[in-house]
């Protein structure tokens, strides 16, 4: 079975803090994705990566950055957390562009 793990299930941070969300997949997938999920808005793509050290902006990249130094690991960084970044963050990996395998999510609260 494909396994995608995320470093934390719940996270509470203060405004202005730098936040790191880690995602690791064990299936040697080329593609990895970061989404945020908000009620009524569905999933929105923040960033994705199709290879090591490669990254592409998704639909809502503002306020976020990413890092992919190793194939199995894709990190999402909030340089200076703000309250409007309180959300559920989902990581996914995929061998192709369609069938994606998701991690359990990190619920981030920014106070």
């Amino acid at each position: 079975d494909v396994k995608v793990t995320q470093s934390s299930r719940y996270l509470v941070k203060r405004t202005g803090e730098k936040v790191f969300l880690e995602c690791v997949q064990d299936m040697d997938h080329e593609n990895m994705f970061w989404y945020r999920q908000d009620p009524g808005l569905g999933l929105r793509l923040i960033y994705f990566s199709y290879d090591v050290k490669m990254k592409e902006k998704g639909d809502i990249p503002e306020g976020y950055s990413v890092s992919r130094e190793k194939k199995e690991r894709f990190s999402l960084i909030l340089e200076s957390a703000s309250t409007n970044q309180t959300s559920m963050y989902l990581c996914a990996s995929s061998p192709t562009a369609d069938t994606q395998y998701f991690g359990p999510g990190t619920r981030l609260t920014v106070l």
Partner: protein
Amino acid sequence: AQSVAQPEDQVNVAEGNPLTVKCTYSVSGNPYLFWYVQYPNRGLQFLLKYITGDNLVKGSYGFEAEFNKSQTSFHLKKPSALVSDSALYFCAVRDKTGFQKLVFGTGTRLLVSP
């Protein structure tokens, strides 16, 4: 731009009854369509996909979806609902512009009552 719409925020159905969760799409060319499910406190799981071929696609947990080109719809169905089917369901379409990423709908919450 490719998009999908899920017109219902919530669908309520009694256990044992058939269920339908609606999805319509807007794409140029032939669509690649998907359904994902999210159980409480879990990540999304792939259910099924339509790429080409038979308009009725069968997926996991007894779900199926019907592709209808004339109505630009891809509704998710199950003949007999279970309480354990209660979850959040997302329709998605592959964006064919640039990198072929998925575009998700806003989600429909399915509640199956005993």
